[in-house]
């Protein structure tokens, strides 16, 4: 269905000193840097799969999606989707895909939502019967009827996102690209959108590629994930596999009678491990110690803590996938 083979995208970036002086200097003497936004990535997605495409900001997710949708031309490598090369047979290719960029909208901003659908119906040459069935389905799944007559500019973000999702599927695409479809939404709307995506995938066997920063999206939607970092593919596999592969970390959550007690503990010297095997997160109510359970056994860890400090409450947990991904990025995910 989707074949991506050795794809690279280079951008020429102007290097500029800061301030007005830097800008003026750069006006006369431009220096360029070649940046590889996407660097030699390959993967394959079979029909009907929902693939989670994750990575930190600036990792190259959007660039990849834009190449897959034919917006950008790869510098190197080959992309084939539905037997077509996106940027080459663009007009024919885009008939079979739907695209949602969470940060932008493709709706007619000044007009009632229903107008967007009727224009798109013509743009994609959808037959009346198919259109009506489609609208009925989308209405049901995304609950558009409440606001279908309101001008798009008056919609709330959640309504707009549902509308954008519907707009991308009016022509029953075989592949759907969702670039951060839940960005900025509240939990209830997120759930709504996830449910809709699942339903669409099940009913129409639509292949979906989804990028997101919300790992709940991933956990509830995707069996498989591809992760990129600094333009390179760093992981391709199932979510469960990733959890086992990186799941050697455990966390101890505790609350103490006196938080100062905790200063008495020194895990690194006690267990003779490296700094990266231990991570401590302190707040007023709770202290979390994340540790590598292959180097420190859970029982040793617990007895060391219990021996030295007065514990009010303590529990040992698996590390959630957010934490795993943080470690893989090698930095904090801010949200």
């Amino acid at each position, binding site marked *: 269905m989707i074949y991506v083979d050795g794809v690279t995208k280079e*951008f020429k970036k102007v290097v500029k000193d800061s301030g007005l002086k830097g800008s003026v200097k750069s006006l006369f003497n431009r220096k360029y840097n070649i940046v590889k936004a996407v660097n030699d990535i390959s993967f394959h997605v079979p029909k009907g799969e929902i693939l989670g495409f994750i990575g930190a900001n*600036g990792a190259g997710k*959007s660039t990849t999606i*834009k190449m897959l*949708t*034919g*917006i*950008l*031309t790869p510098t190197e490598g080959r992309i084939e989707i539905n037997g077509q090369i996106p*940027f080459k047979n*663009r*007009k*024919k290719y*885009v*008939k079979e*895909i739907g*695209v949602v*960029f969470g*940060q*932008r909208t*493709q709706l*007619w901003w*000044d*007009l009632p939502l229903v*107008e967007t659908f*009727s*224009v798109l119906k*013509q*743009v*994609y*040459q959808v037959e009346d019967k198919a259109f009506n069935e489609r609208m009925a389905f989308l209405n049901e799944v995304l609950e558009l009827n409440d606001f279908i007559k309101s*001008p798009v500019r008056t919609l709330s973000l959640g309504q707009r996102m549902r509308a954008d999702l519907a707009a991308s599927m009016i022509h029953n695409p075989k592949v759907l690209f969702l*670039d*951060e479809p839940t960005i900025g939404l509240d939990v209830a709307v997120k759930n709504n959108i996830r449910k809709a995506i699942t339903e669409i995938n099940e009913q129409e066997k639509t292949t979906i590629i989804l990028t997101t920063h919300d790992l709940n999206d991933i956990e509830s939607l995707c069996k498989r994930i591809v992760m990129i970092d600094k333009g390179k593919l760093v992981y391709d596999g199932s979510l469960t596999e990733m959890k086992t592969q990186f799941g050697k970390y455990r966390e101890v959550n505790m609350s103490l009678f006196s938080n100062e007690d905790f200063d008495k503990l020194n895990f690194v010297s006690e267990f003779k491990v490296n700094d990266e095997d231990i991570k401590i997160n302190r707040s007023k109510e709770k202290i979390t110690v994340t540790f590598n359970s292959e180097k420190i056994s859970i029982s040793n860890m617990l007895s060391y803590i219990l021996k030295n400090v007065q514990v009010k409450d303590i529990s040992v947990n698996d590390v959630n996938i957010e934490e795993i991904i943080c470690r893989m990025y090698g930095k904090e995910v801010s949200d």
Partner: protein
Amino acid sequence: MRFLRLYKTFIIQHIKKLMEYRIDFLTGAMSFFINQVTNIVFIGIIFSQIPNLDGYLFYEIIFIYGFSLVPKGIDHLLTDNLWKVAWFIVRKGDFDKYLTRPISPLVHCIIESIQFDALGELLTGIILIVIASVKLSIKFTFVNVVLMIIAMIFGAVIFTAIKIIGAAIAFWIKQSGSILQIFYGISDFARYPATIYNSVIRNVVTYIIPFAFTAYYPASYILRGNNPLFCIGGVIVAAMVLLGISLIVWHKGLNAYESAGS
């Protein structure tokens, strides 16, 4: 046929959008009217000071001036969105939208809007042509009129092609509004007889950026019967060559498009 249907749909949407903001629409319509009246008054004042220019009579100059407004007006009416491409659609990454729809991106962004202000240019142009024709008692024959209309249509294509090139430059340099403005500014030379300029300017507006073919040459055929092969044929050749070049540049530009971060 599909194109015309789509065009109709898009334009209807555009008009609905204009009417959605009623006050803005009414103000716009009124200012458009005032604009045209002042335009005509000004042209009258300026030209009454120049009774004769390089052997051209006052009403001949009016005729050329009026002629120049028609192709420019047609282009302005239909393809105004290209300015937005040059100024910000590419720079902000909003061009993405056109690339994910099954219509040619160029057609898509052209048919998305219609610039009614241009009707003023067209109207002024036609009024000036009519007045000048009456005063000069120009004899219109069937051939004459058909050739004039053809020249005006292809003249508009010259404008459009130059705008396409100017807008496409934005794919490489992100914002090409100023460049397009310079190109477009040169079209003001077309309002007057090309013979009044020195040879450099004359050659530039004839062979390089052939705005002289959008007014002076075809008008001189009507006014003085100058060689129609050059005066009218030249418009068609210039328009087709430029259009060809502009489409090549545009398509190369699409491949260079870099979108914007999101």
